[in-house]
């Protein structure tokens, strides 16, 4: 029974025990076809999301026990092609070629069959055992699309199963067919799909040259990729035999001359011609004429006036409800913890409590009432398909700031917490766009900083100054974007984004996504809070704070015109920004901060807190996504920038208002 696939790779599996898997399945397909929903259906809680080794691409794997079989499943990234356009594509094709999963389940969106088949054809070129899941057939039916899966199966030579992922329909059948394929009971090697004569001839000749080469990819795949000018494959072959690469280049030019288009475009065109032919033979479309409700909503949100008004209203609603309810919830939770805390500790013990345990408590009282609901609402918006429309409406504006249109989404997330926001920069294709966005995001005031502004300025000065600070922050963001755009090397890419039909959010998807974002926060933020808190507490206990205060007094007192204690507060703020206003109460034993700071000082302090340094958690994320050097450069820049600007700002206020 389990003897068939002793080569089934188990090396990097995310299985939660060390049993060898009976079979390995990879899920592949375009983005947004419901692949992850199916993956979650298979694996439930038995999944692990990490990174591909050395790369900033998510690797989701899990395992499943089904009728006595242990099955490892890997969810490959959503991609449109198997070229070198993105790391996601590279990682996926390398996985399939080197790790040789027993079965690849290609999840296809029934509503966009032709486009999805383009990718299917590339999987076919990799000659892997394939099963096709035609997903979202219910949505397709509503659009008047009916797919003949038997015919499709006949044409491609592989099993084709209709599914409705979010309802779990057809999903079990996928597993069963996969098992049958792995056991050898079912044929799933796809039929060869042929291009035009002039291309096939050259492919055949290249395959002859490639006969003696041992690479994990099928020779037909290599031949086609060489004709397409694929850089990675070219390099690998060049190392073995330069002549083949030259011959392939010559063939590419010949094809170019015949068709009048670059060879890779010719091949893509032919693939699409084939995909189109297959789609026409296997689907029947009876167009439904009504301008559906979703079309009307779409027209509203992309309208030149109403679109922006509705965007403003939606964002306002989100932020307002989060901060109102968050405040209430936060008080309740804090109250609960306060009741637990030992009273009248004073001195060392209070600092320690505030540091270590306080770190944990702060994580809870910040994350639970504010960040979690914020991400919940945002994920709902995301699942409806609204956010790409926002990118659509703001792309040009973002461009002027030096940002990619899609960057608006992580930027909005940054108001909750910068950490998952920086992580979400992965939705952009180039590293440069991701870095510019992440850099700008560090200037976006997260919940902690907003609390500082509200708790200090709005409470003790007035609301208008609080608004002014947030406005100033926006201006800084605009400027920083342009600077980053000019300063950071590399290539950017314009907007090319698929827009899916607006739809009702699925509770299952929203909850899974929100929890996933929460996980990012918990695994990075909480440890930072707790460890940082302990370090600070230790520094206090060993009397390291006073020397620091004295050392930095020339900056804090002379230049920034703030009380010298501020250097200590800002140090605490590196761990958690809210500590900047919490610590004074502890150190001076009063919640009336007006006794410690003048109004001007409060404004300047809040301003500096907003922009002076990425907190430890954010730094950790920056380091992970962009490397130590970049994270350090950003940090140092921000410290110097905040100090410089803080001093100037202080004098400007004093000049204008005193």
């Amino acid at each position, binding site marked *: 029974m389990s003897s068939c696939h002793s080569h089934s790779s188990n090396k990097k599996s995310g299985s939660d025990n060390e049993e060898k898997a009976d079979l390995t399945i990879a899920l592949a397909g375009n983005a947004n076809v419901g692949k992850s929903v199916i993956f979650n259906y298979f694996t439930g809680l038995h999944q692990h999301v990490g990174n591909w080794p050395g790369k900033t691409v998510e690797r989701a794997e899990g395992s499943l026990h089904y009728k006595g079989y242990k099955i490892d499943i890997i969810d490959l990234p959503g991609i449109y092609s198997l070229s070198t356009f993105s790391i996601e594509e590279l990682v996926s094709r390398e996985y399939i070629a080197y790790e040789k999963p027993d079965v690849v389940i290609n999840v296809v969106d029934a509503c966009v069959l032709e486009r999805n088949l383009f990718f299917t054809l590339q999987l076919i070129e990799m000659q892997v055992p394939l099963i096709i899941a035609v997903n979202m057939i219910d949505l397709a039916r509503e659009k008047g699309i009916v797919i003949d899966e038997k015919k499709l199966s006949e044409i491609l030579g592989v099993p084709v199963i209709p599914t409705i992922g979010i309802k779990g329909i057809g999903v079990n059948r996928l597993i069963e067919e996969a098992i049958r394929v792995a056991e050898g009971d079912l044929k799933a090697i796809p039929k060869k799909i042929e291009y035009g004569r002039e291309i096939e001839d050259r492919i055949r000749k290249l395959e002859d040259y490639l006969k003696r080469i041992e690479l994990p990819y099928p020779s037909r795949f290599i031949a086609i990729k060489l004709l397409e000018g694929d850089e990675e494959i070219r390099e690998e072959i060049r190392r073995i035999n330069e002549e083949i690469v030259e011959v392939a280049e010559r063939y590419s030019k010949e094809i170019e001359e015949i068709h*009048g*288009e670059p060879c890779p475009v010719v091949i893509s065109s032919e693939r699409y011609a084939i995909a189109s032919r297959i789609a026409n033979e296997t689907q029947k479309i009876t167009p439904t004429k009504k301008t559906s409700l979703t079309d009307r909503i779409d027209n509203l949100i992309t309208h030149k006036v109403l679109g922006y008004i509705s965007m403003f209203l939606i964002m306002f609603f989100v932020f307002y409800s989060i901060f109102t309810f968050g405040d209430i919830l936060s008080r309740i939770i804090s109250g609960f913890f306060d009741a637990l805390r030992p009273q009248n500790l004073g001195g060392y013990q209070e600092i320690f409590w505030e540091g270590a345990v306080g770190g944990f408590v702060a994580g809870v009282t910040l994350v639970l009432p504010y960040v979690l609901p914020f991400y919940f609402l945002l994920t709902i918006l995301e699942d409806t398909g609204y956010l790409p429309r926002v990118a659509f409406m703001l792309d040009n504006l973002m461009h002027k700031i030096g940002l990619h*249109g899609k960057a608006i989404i992580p930027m909005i997330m940054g108001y909750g917490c910068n950490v998952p926001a920086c992580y979400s920069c992965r939705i952009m294709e180039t590293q440069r766009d991701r870095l510019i966005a992440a850099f700008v995001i560090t200037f976006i005031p997260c919940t902690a900083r907003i609390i500082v502004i509200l708790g200090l300025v709005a409470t003790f000065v007035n609301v208008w100054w609080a608004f002014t600070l947030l406005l100033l922050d926006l201006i800084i963001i605009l400027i920083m974007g342009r600077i980053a755009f000019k300063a950071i090397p590399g290539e950017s890419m314009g907007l090319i984004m698929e827009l899916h039909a607006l739809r009702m959010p699925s509770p299952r998807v929203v909850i899974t996504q929100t929890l996933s974002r929460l996980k990012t926060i918990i695994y990075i933020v909480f440890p930072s809070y707790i460890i940082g808190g302990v370090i600070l507490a230790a520094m206090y206990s060993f009397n390291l704070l006073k020397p620091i205060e004295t050392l930095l007094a020339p900056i804090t007192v002379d230049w920034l015109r703030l009380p010298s204690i501020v250097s200590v507060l800002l140090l605490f703020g590196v761990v958690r920004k809210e500590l900047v206003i919490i610590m004074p109460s502890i150190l001076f034993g009063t919640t009336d901060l007006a006794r410690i700071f003048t109004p001007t000082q409060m404004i300047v302090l809040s301003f500096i807190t907003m922009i002076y340094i990425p907190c430890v958690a954010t730094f950790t994320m920056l380091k992970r996504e962009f490397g130590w050097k970049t994270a350090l450069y950003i940090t140092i820049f921000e410290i110097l920038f905040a100090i410089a600007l803080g001093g100037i700002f202080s004098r400007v206020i004093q000049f204008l208002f005193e």
Partner: protein
Amino acid sequence: MQHRNGMNSGSDSNGYRFRHRHRHKRAISVLDLKPGQRGRIVSLRGNQKIVQRLADLGLTPETTIHILRTAPLNGPIEIAVRGSRLAIGREIARNILVHAEEE
């Protein structure tokens, strides 16, 4: 697919740019089409990586595309191609050359 006879072709140093005189006779940028109009792709200019990306998403020569809308403030355009909808930034769209199709 039909074979085309060899034509005068020249490529540019920063990517693929082919000039085939009769094909480009009435070719306009897709930006010149209005929402509701259809166009047939003639060729794609510009950076090789972007051209390939567009081709992989279905924007290949001889393909019919349908302009759905343009974002306000000189923003991206939204087109329908092969049953899917794509938002494409202005600069990239500028380099998609089409023949307008009569209604």
